[in-house]
Every structure is written in C-alpha cells, then in structure tokens.
C-alpha cells in the first residue's frame, strides 16, 4: 500500500503528512533544547561567579563555525530550490556542499574539544564546562544526524527523483527544515556560550 499524502495535500490540514510530521518533531526538539537552556539559566544565575565564555573557549573558531553552518543552510535551501527548478545536477552540487560544510563544522569542533581535553578541561571540571559540553555535544549529534539523512538523499535516496520527483522534493524540504533548525540552535548557542 502506498504511503498517503506524500505529494497530494490533505483537505483537512491543508498540508502533506510529512510536513506536519517534521514540524511536530521540531516542536519536541524545541522542548529538548529548551529544557537544557532553562537548566543553564538556573545553574548560571545560581552560581556566585560565572566565567565569560571567551576566557575559556576559542571565539575565532566558533565564529568560523557559525559562518560555516549559516552557509550550509543557504546551500541546503538552494538544493531544494534546484529540485523545484527541475535541475537534479545542481541539487547534487548544493546538497554535496551542505554535507561537506557539516563535515567542516565537525572537524573544527573536534579540534576545539581536543584542545580542551589536552588542557585538562572536561565536563566534570566545572559547571560552565558541563553546560558547554552537554549543549554543544547534543548539537553535534544533531549535525551528524542531519548529515546522515542528507547523505542518503544525495546518494541512494535520490533514486526516488526518477520515479516520483515531487515526493523526493518534499523529502528534501523536510530534511532541510531539520538542518535549518540545527543552524537556528547554533545561532543561540554561539553567543550564550562563547560571548557572554
């Protein structure tokens, strides 16, 4: 049996099912990160003193990573726009660039983490580092998850383009929504952890 409402719009919701699904999932993600942000506020406001992020973290590297992640959001949306224009070759270039930029983000994060561990800075060292590693670690897992899904659509999953291009375009839009959410979370993590 075919999956219903992958392309045609449901009359009652005015949407395809996949879009409602991804937005409900993102709503749960907002609550997940929201709980961690609330914990961060609680720990920070309750602490007698709190270090400025810049004194313990590498701001230039994090700024570079912010630019990388924002750029990956643009390539992601351009990948979707390429499918809307029926240009599959261009889609693969933009999607490939998105995956590559995600990889660059992770490599930079690896160097950041390595430097912290080399200096003896671990999550158990103090509350600031516990918050930093928890939030950035969870965010990194999301980047990896997004890259896996994007790689699937770049590679084996793209076979769907030949049989049902509209469905494939919708799938790419949904994975894009997740990727932009990951970018959005970083937009808040960067100033709150590194600059304040």
């Amino acid at each position, binding site marked *: 049996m075919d999956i219903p409402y992958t392309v045609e719009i449901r009359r009652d*919701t*005015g*949407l395809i099912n996949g*879009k*409602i699904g991804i*937005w*409900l999932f993102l*709503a749960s993600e*907002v*609550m997940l990160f*929201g*709980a961690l*942000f*609330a914990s961060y*506020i*609680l720990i920070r*406001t*309750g602490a007698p003193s709190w270090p400025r992020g*810049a004194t313990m973290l590498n*701001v230039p590297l994090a*700024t570079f990573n*912010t*630019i990388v992640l*924002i*750029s990956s*959001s*643009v390539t*992601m*949306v*351009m990948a979707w*726009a390429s499918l*809307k*224009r*029926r240009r599959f070759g261009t889609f693969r270039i933009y999607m490939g660039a998105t995956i590559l930029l995600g990889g660059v983000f992770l490599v930079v994060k690896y160097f950041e983490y390595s430097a912290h561990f080399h200096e003896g800075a671990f999550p158990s060292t103090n509350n600031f580092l516990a918050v930093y590693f928890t939030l950035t670690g969870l965010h990194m897992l999301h980047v990896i998850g997004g890259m896996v899904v994007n790689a699937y659509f770049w590679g084996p999953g793209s076979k769907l383009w030949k049989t049902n291009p509209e469905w494939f375009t919708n799938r790419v839009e949904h994975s*894009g*929504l997740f990727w*932009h*959410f990951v*970018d*959005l979370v970083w*937009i*808040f993590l*960067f*100033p*709150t952890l590194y*600059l*304040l």
Partner: protein
Amino acid sequence: MTSDHAVDIDKHVRVYITVFVALMVLTIVTVTVSRFHLPVPVAVTVALIIATIKGSLVACYFMHLISEKKLIYAVLGLTAVFFLALLALPVVTVHDGYWIH
C-alpha cells in the same frame, strides 16, 4: 515547470542570498559587540536581540514560516507557550531573592 513558477523560485533564491548576507553581517555585529565588554545584563540583552533577529530570518525565509499554513502556526504557538513556561521555571524557583530548596 511553468514560467510563472520559475520566476517565483528565482525570487525565492534572491531572498535567500539577501538573508545570507544579513546573517553574515549580524554575526560580525554579535562578535564586535562582545568585544566592548558591556555589563553582563546589557550584553545578554544585546546578544539575545541579535540572535532572535538571526533566528527569525532563518525560520521565516529558509524554513518558509513566513508563508506557512495555519496548522503549523498553531503547533508552533503551542510550543512557544510551553517553551516560555520552561524558561520561566528558574524565575519561579526564586522567592524573595533566595533559592527555594
């Protein structure tokens, strides 16, 4: 693909590029402001205002929330209520300036 549809997507692409430039400029502004070493409450306010503007640009244009269906807005509205309640929890744990244990 109709020519109208192609023109529509071309307009979208121009918007994406504009938003990208705006996000880059705002990132530079965020880092520059942090170098002024403002008092923490002011620094937090400024940083969060800029981050909110950047987040809104991503949500409205890259995630197409600016032209989404009512059901999505309803889901997000409900999420926003619970999210704000979650962020307010630390505030309600304080009574007369002391933490409730």
